[in-house]
Structures are given as structure tokens and as C-alpha cells.
């Protein structure tokens, strides 16, 4: 056991979205401080939505996060639609699911390919891969481009989508476009498998850490849930999304800036691994096949495996997107007018919208007055829900590493990899506390 | 599409000489790659093209009587194209379209007394005509050259200016707006308009040729009016931003109550009598 002084201090952790620090101090093998700190300047979205019209809310809240802007837009639209009593057509629902698949795939490919793979390949970043592993990098880029093409085609833009509006879509893709997209999706399996092979080769690089925790995600009898469903916990079972506040109980802790969340235990995890743990059986067979290659079965308690769960989900996204396009084309695409604006009757009310975004379950909750002006809003973002779990993982992992005589560098890397495995999107945290740390 | 058919495809020209004139102005000597002459008339301009950067209209500063087959451009670095040209070294190539526009009326000026008034970079187009006239000295009568700059270091073509000063058959005066204490300057100090009263003007035979920054025209023209020089005897070279040089893009239009002039087609050299009614001309 190490008896030296250990001081890990990672300011502005890289390769995550947003700003977070890792601080670990140990003396004589005794942890004095072990903190996951969040230092993002607050952005006040829940205030910014107040006094805004139902027509604008999704536009504003989309800006919570550039990477999950489609998910935020959809959670927002669902909340607005629930509040105003708006139903959308089956076709629009399918197109929205396609949009979520696109975003999930984009984000996961970015995370696995650009952020995690370099760690596994022993490179500091994706840039050296351009010369050391050009073919592998190009494979990843092709998948990334495909996901963005899908977003573009369905949403009119990859980041801050335009076509998604209350009541449906302002513009929809044509059958020809969908067919072309489907072809490209079908042709992407080779690339997907190449990335899976690459990860499998490096599977031993995933730390064998494990800590029992609770996993929360949407769940849906019909399908592996992204767009709609109820909330499922590995601890407490299924509950309606209207009870989201009882599940996410956000609370303030002294040692961190961010609000933490807890349900049954002192922390829980959301994201790809949580979804996989809850809904494994509904994965497409091909996705399951990939999971099996990594021995990833529910309930898996190794947070590092979140990366593999992401890979599995990408395969599922592609598979399901192909199926959705089949359904859309079989039903025959119902054309709509250019610059379509669905008829919406404004009413007073409150609505809650939940979707799965790449990093986990996301809730938007708005209240509108008779004129359709928002009077209050609340957004619970996945990364916020994960903060407590990250903190507790660190509290378990750090002593283990010290116990095993790991050096400072190695401890630092393992902790960084741990945080990155959650793919935290700190900038999208709508409410963080900016507390001064007393050292 | 054939290269010759495209109005917009520049000809390649090689930089065969490059010389610093002032801190921000350089003289470039160019030759068309196909070996042909440019065949410019004094006062005409070319569209200088640097692929990847853009195009800019530049007067040909050399006289067609000299240095053939090469030609010279005197360019001040003020923006994208001119900066990029300044970066080019001898031996590299640029694109040239043209020459375009109406130059100076060399035939009309034959046998007349000439008064050149150049302010700053305005010397660039005038130099072409001055050297043209000097090379055909006996076809022209008295020659007066007034050349003004902000400060001594901005005077260009020193050797040629000195040569004008030495020649007995030329009346030449140089002036600067301002001369720092530590600089030695043999010419006048003051704005160029102050030199005009000193020039002998024969109302029937003198033609003034003026080029300078936009602010200069108004004052020079007032001064010439005091001398009662007929407006038909004054020629100006005007500048506008241009996108084609071919009388199409609309950018170089000079607006008046009667009609509109295209600096690139109808000019850049204009007779003052013709443009004085144009609100936007000077």
C-alpha cells in the first residue's frame, strides 16, 4: 500500500462536454478528499422559458445542449403537447423516433469513436489517429457522417433542429430520400462491425471495476424505449413519468456544486448502460450479438461498460431505423403542405415530456396559462442525475486504486476514464450551483 | 467551355519585377505568359486576379511606349487582393483580365498644353499618360506636372520625378501636406491646390488631367474654376468597386439625374463636362 502523498487535480476535464474537475487527495493511503466538481457557469433556462410562448419553448430549450438538441427539442415538444392536449400522427411519431435514433447514434459514435477509442489505443486524442490509424478513423467518421445525414434529412439540421415543431413537422423527408437513407444504413453494418472488432481487441483495457447501483430509464412494452414509455428502475420497478419528481429528487450536497439526484439509494445511473440493463430483451438480435461479444448482460454494474452499451445501442439504432423506414414506406408517406404548421388550440395546463437522450432519461415540465405563455418550467437533465453516481463510484474506486499501489498518473487516468465513461454533458446541466470550494 | 470564350477566365501573367515604392505600395512588372502584349492605352485598367482571393481593378501604370512586352502595376496594399499580390514573389503568376475601360484621349490632347494633377496613388494612372506624352514629346505642347502626397515618404517613382524636375521642357512641382522635422524635403509644403495658381493656363489650349483620392477632386476643381478653365478641358479618372469590369455587375455605376455612367465602361477616365452633373461623380 502506498504511503506517499497522492494529489490528483484535473481542472477542466477534457473530452467531455462542459466543465468538470476531479480532485483526489490522499495521505498515507488515507483519502482526504475525493470530489467530482462541476464548475459550469449557470445558464438559467428554467427562468428563460418563463413568459415565452408555446411556439418558442422548444427553440429555446434546444439550446440547453448542442449534442442532445434533438432530444431536448422532443422532450420540450412532448411537454408542450401534453400541456396543450395536442396529439401527433403515427407518421410524425415514427419520424421523431428516427430523429432520436440519429441523435443517439451521432452522440455515441462521437463518444466511442472520438473520445473513448483514443484512450483504448493509447493516444491522447483522436488527432494522432489520423496518422496512426487512418482507416479506423475513417470508419468512425463514415458512421458519424451517416448519423448526421439522417438528422439532416429528418430534422433539417443536425444541431438545433428546425422541422420539429409542436404538433408535428414543418417539413418531412420524401420517400426517395428515405429510401436512399435506408440504403446507406444497410450498407453501414460493415463499418459497425469493424468498430465492434476494434473495441473487442481492446476489451482488456476496460477496467474491471464494479459497484452496485440503481439504473433508471424509460421502458416501453412495444420496443427498446427512446421516444416514449414509463420510468423503470432496477430497484423500484415501473412508474409513470408524471412521478418524475419523486424519482429524481434533486438535492444539494455540500461537497459539490451540482445538484445530485437520488431515488431508492444515495445515487443512480442513467444512460446507455441503464437502458440496456432495463430493456435488454428488446434489443435487436444483431445488437444483442454485439453485447454478447463483450459479455455484457443485465444487470451489469461496471460503469466503464457504458461505452460498450453505447456501441450496442448504435447497432440497435441502425437496425431499428431501417425498420422504421420500412414501416413508413409500407404505410405510404402521407404528404403534407410546404411550411406546414399544425393547428393547435391553446389551453391552460401543465405537461411533462420525457425522452431518452444519449446520456439518459430527460424530463421537461412546463406550465402554461390560457394564452399559451409559459409560467414555469423545470428540466431534469441526465448528467445531473448521474453526478451522484459518479461521485460514489469515485469514492469506491480511488481507495481501490491506492490499495493496489497505483501511481498518481494511473489513478488520474482511471478516474478520468471513469468520468468520461458516463459521457457527461455538463454544459447542458440547467441548474448547477456555482459554489466556491473551500480547500 | 473554351478559355477564350469566358469573359471571366483570367490570362496568366508572370511577375518579372517587384519594387518597393513606399511602405504600403509596390511596383510590379508583369508579362503575359502567352508572350503577347497587353496593348493598353494610358488610363485603362486590368482586373488583377488572384485565385482563391479575388479580383481588383488596377490601373496600368506603365506607358504602352515603354518596356514592352511587359507592363507595370503600382499597387497599394489595402485589402485582400492587394495584400495577396504584395506577398507574391518574382517568378510567380497571377491572373489578368483586360485591359478595360476608356483611357485618356491621347489624340484629343495632341498639340495641347497639359496640366497633370496627381494626388497620392493617383499618380498610378497618370504616370502612364505622362510617360506616353514624354515619349512623344513633340506631339504635345507645354507640360505641367503637379504631384502631391501626404508626406515625403509617400512620394513614388523618385527617379522619374527627379528626371521631370531636371528636364527643361517640363514644369514640375511636388508638394507634401506635412513634412516631419527630421526629414529633408526640397519641394513645397501644403495641399496640392496651392500649386495651381502658379501654373500658366491658356484657356484655349490647356487640358487638365486629374487623379487622386475622392476628397481631392472637389478642391482641385474649385481651384481650376477660379482659373476659368473650361470644363471640357478637364479629365478625371474615377474609382469605384467593380465585380466584372465589363459593364454588367452594376457596382461601379455613377448616378446622375440624366443617366448613369459605368466607371468600367464609360470611364474610368471621364471628361469633367460630362460628369459634373452627376451627383455621385466627385
Amino acid at each position, binding site marked *: 500500500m502506498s504511503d506517499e502523498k497522492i494529489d490528483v487535480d484535473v481542472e477542466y476535464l477534457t473530452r467531455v*462536454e462542459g*466543465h468538470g474537475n476531479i480532485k483526489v487527495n490522499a495521505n498515507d493511503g488515507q483519502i482526504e478528499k475525493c470530489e467530482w466538481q462541476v464548475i459550469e457557469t449557470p445558464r*438559467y433556462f*428554467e427562468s428563460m422559458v*418563463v413568459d*415565452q410562448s408555446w411556439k418558442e419553448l422548444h427553440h429555446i430549450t434546444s*439550446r440547453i445542449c*448542442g449534442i442532445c438538441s434533438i432530444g431536448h427539442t422532443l422532450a420540450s415538444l412532448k411537454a408542450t403537447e401534453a400541456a396543450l392536449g395536442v396529439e401527433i400522427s403515427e407518421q410524425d411519431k415514427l419520424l421523431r423516433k428516427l430523429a432520436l435514433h440519429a441523435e443517439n447514434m451521432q452522440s455515441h459514435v462521437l463518444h466511442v469513436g472520438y473520445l473513448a477509442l483514443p484512450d483504448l489505443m493509447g493516444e491522447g486524442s483522436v*488527432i494522432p489517429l489520423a496518422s496512426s490509424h487512418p482507416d479506423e478513423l475513417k470508419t468512425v467518421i463514415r458512421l458519424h457522417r451517416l448519423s448526421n445525414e439522417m438528422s439532416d434529412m429528418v430534422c433539417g439540421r443536425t444541431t438545433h433542429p428546425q422541422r420539429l415543431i409542436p404538433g408535428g413537422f414543418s417539413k418531412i423527408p420524401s420517400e426517395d430520400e428515405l429510401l436512399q437513407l435506408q440504403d446507406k444504413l444497410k450498407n453501414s453494418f460493415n463499418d459497425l462491425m469493424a468498430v465492434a472488432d476494434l473495441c473487442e481487441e481492446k476489451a482488456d483495457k476496460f477496467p474491471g471495476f464494479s459497484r452496485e447501483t440503481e439504473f433508471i430509464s424509460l421502458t416501453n412494452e412495444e420496443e427498446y424505449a427512446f421516444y416514449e414509455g414509463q420510468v423503470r428502475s432496477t430497484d423500484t420497478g415501473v412508474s409513470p413519468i408524471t412521478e418524475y419528481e419523486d424519482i429524481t429528487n434533486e438535492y444539494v450536497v455540500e461537497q459539490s456544486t451540482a445538484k445530485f439526484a437520488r431515488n431508492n439509494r444515495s445515487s443512480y445511473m442513467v444512460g446507455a448502460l441503464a437502458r440496456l440493463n432495463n430493456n435488454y430483451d428488446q434489443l435487436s438480435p444483431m445488437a444483442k450479438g454485439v453485447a454478447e461479444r463483450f459479455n455484457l448482460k443485465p444487470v451489469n454494474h461496471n460503469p466503464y461498460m457504458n461505452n460498450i452499451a453505447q456501441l450496442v445501442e448504435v447497432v440497435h439504432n441502425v437496425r431499428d431505423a431501417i425498420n422504421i423506414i420500412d414501416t413508413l414506406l409500407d404505410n405510404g408517406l402521407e404528404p403534407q403542405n410546404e411550411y406546414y404548421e399544425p393547428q393547435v388550440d391553446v389551453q391552460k395546463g401543465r405537461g411533462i415530456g420525457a425522452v431518452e437522450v444519449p446520456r439518459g432519461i430527460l424530463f421537461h415540465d412546463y406550465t402554461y396559462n390560457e394564452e399559451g405563455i409559459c409560467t414555469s418550467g423545470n428540466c431534469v437533465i441526465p448528467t445531473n442525475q448521474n453526478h451522484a453516481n459518479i461521485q460514489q463510484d469515485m469514492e469506491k474506486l480511488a481507495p481501490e486504486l491506492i490499495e493496489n499501489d497505483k501511481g498518481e498518473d494511473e489513478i488520474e487516468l482511471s478516474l478520468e476514464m471513469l468520468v468520461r465513461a458516463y459521457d457527461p454533458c455538463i454544459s447542458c446541466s440547467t441548474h448547477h450551483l*456555482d459554489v466556491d470550494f473551500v480547500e | 467551355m473554351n478559355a477564350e470564350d469566358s469573359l471571366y477566365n483570367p490570362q496568366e501573367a508572370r511577375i518579372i519585377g517587384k519594387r518597393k515604392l513606399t511602405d504600403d505600395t509596390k511596383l510590379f512588372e508583369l508579362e503575359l505568359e502567352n508572350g503577347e502584349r497587353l496593348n493598353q492605352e494610358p488610363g485603362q485598367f486590368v482586373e488583377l486576379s488572384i485565385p482563391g482571393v479575388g479580383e481588383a481593378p488596377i490601373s496600368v501604370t506603365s506607358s504602352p511606349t515603354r518596356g514592352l512586352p511587359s507592363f507595370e502595376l503600382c499597387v497599394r496594399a489595402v485589402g485582400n487582393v492587394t495584400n495577396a499580390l504584395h506577398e507574391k514573389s518574382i517568378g510567380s503568376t497571377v491572373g489578368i483580365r483586360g485591359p478595360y475601360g476608356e483611357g485618356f484621349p491621347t489624340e484629343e490632347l495632341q498639340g495641347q498644353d497639359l496640366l497633370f494633377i496627381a494626388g497620392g496613388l493617383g499618380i498610378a494612372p497618370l504616370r502612364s499618360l505622362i510617360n506616353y506624352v514624354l515619349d512623344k514629346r513633340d506631339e504635345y505642347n507645354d507640360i505641367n506636372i503637379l504631384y502631391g502626397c501626404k508626406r515625403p515618404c509617400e512620394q513614388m517613382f523618385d527617379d522619374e520625378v527627379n528626371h521631370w524636375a531636371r528636364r527643361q521642357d517640363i514644369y514640375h512641382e511636388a508638394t507634401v501636406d506635412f513634412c516631419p522635422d527630421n526629414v529633408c524635403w526640397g519641394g513645397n509644403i501644403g495641399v496640392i491646390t496651392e500649386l495651381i495658381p502658379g501654373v500658366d493656363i491658356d484657356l484655349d489650349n490647356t487640358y487638365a488631367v486629374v487623379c487622386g483620392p475622392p476628397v481631392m477632386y472637389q478642391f482641385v476643381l474649385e481651384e481650376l474654376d477660379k482659373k476659368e478653365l473650361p470644363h471640357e478641358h478637364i479629365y478625371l479618372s474615377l474609382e469605384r468597386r467593380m465585380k466584372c469590369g465589363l459593364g454588367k455587375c452594376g457596382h461601379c455605376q455613377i448616378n446622375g439625374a440624366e443617366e448613369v455612367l459605368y466607371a468600367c465602361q464609360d470611364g474610368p477616365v471621364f471628361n469633367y463636362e460630362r460628369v459634373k452633373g452627376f451627383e455621385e461623380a466627385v
Partner: protein
Amino acid sequence: MSKPKVAFFDFAGCEGDQLQVANLEEKILDLLELVEVVNFREVISQKSDDYDIAFIEGSIASDHDAERLREIRTNAGIVVALGSCAAIGGINSIRNSQNPELVEERVYGDDADKVEAWDKAKPVDAVVEVDHYIYGCPIDQDEFVHVVESLVQGKEPNIPTYPVCVECKMNENVCVFARNGGSTQISSSEREVQTPGAAQAEQGPFCLGPVTRAGCDSKCVNEGTTCWGCRGLVDSPNENAHKKVLDKYGLTVEEVLNKFNLYFGWQQEERNNE
């Protein structure tokens, strides 16, 4: 010529602009031929204080931000504001017109006093000098490429000074204001007849294209919605005339101000102070 060193930094924003850079896909490899990326926290681990061009994303909203930004300004030869939050304050400036105490209370409740942030979100040039601006929420990839290519060549980038309507016209969109009536020119009596459903009449059509700087190829209008003003005001917007237009199409004064506040909050304040 040695490659210019390029760094990306982010402040209060959604990081969607950096994502647009990542989304260049294959072109990223070309970009890497042209410049050396030394800081790009979202994607690479290395950090360096040695860079020529700094791209700043996000608004500045705390002393801590401002301090970090000043340091970057000292290190960088060229500072580029990347995206609307950095260039004009962006969506963050919605809160600038709200009561700051209410703002904190709505988000943090009882813990509001623990929050350390300015009452206003500010663009980068409110704190340090900015050399170039890339507008947009998010930025347009072609414009980013153009700016990088220009800076590398020592060119002044060409950013439109005209409004979005220009691009919208070139794309032959049906103008937002003409979508219900069949003509942009409708009298108020006609409008009531043409607008279906009383509930809808609560707000007329709006588009900020006429006062918003172009450069996005009128993206949002092409996609069937409206210009929200994300690229900020043109250099000399005729706001009065535009407000009259919005009024003509049925927006109340508050609604008009509300729209102008979506992205123009900070710019409006600046203009009023002039």
C-alpha cells in the same frame, strides 16, 4: 509556412458550435493539414497555452469566466467569437431583461444565494477585444471553413452585411408573412378572415429575417419555420420599420419585444446605450 496553432475554448453555451466543427467529418482531416489544433477540450486531451488563433464559444457570465477569457486574449494573436452566445450574447441574453433575483429563484429556489454569476450573460467583446465573428446558433459549417481558410491566408473573411431575406429570396421561399394570406400585402380586415381558429389569432406570423444578418442560407425558413434572429442584427437594422411590419401582422408590442429578445437582447441594450 508553419501551421497556425488553433485553440477552442468554451464558456456558457451548448457547445453546439464545436460540434459543428466535429461534424465537418472527412473535412476535419483537411483542416488538420491546414492548422494545428492544440486545444479542443471537447475532443482532445492535450492543453497548451501556445496558440495563434483562439475560437471562443459561449457567453461570459461570471468573474471566473472573465478572468479565464482575459488570459486567452493575452495568449492569442487572433480571437474569434464562435457562435451566437460568444458573438452577440445569444439565447443566454433572454434572461438579461428578466429580474435577476427572480431568475435565480426560479432555478435554485432557496439556494439562490449560493450562485455566483453575473446578472447578464455577455458576448465576448463585452470583456475583451474580438477580431472576427462567426455568427449563428449553431454556426454554419461553410462559414467556419471560409473564416479559417481566410485567416490562414491572411484574408479578411467576407461575412454578409445584408439581412437573411436576401438568401431567403434566392431560395425562393414563400415568405413567412405570406403563408396565410397568399400575399405579403394583406389588410388587417382580410387577415382576421384568413387566420383560422380564434386560438391561433393570438399571435401573428413573425420572422426576424429582415433585420438579421445573413450567412445561414436562410436555413430555418427553408426548413419550414421562421428566422428567429440567431445571427444577430445587421449593421444598420431598420428596427422601427420592422416593428411596424410585425405590428401590421398582428403582434402586440410585448410580443415584438419578446421576439427581439430571443437573440438580440444584448445588441439591443448596446444600441440603446449608444
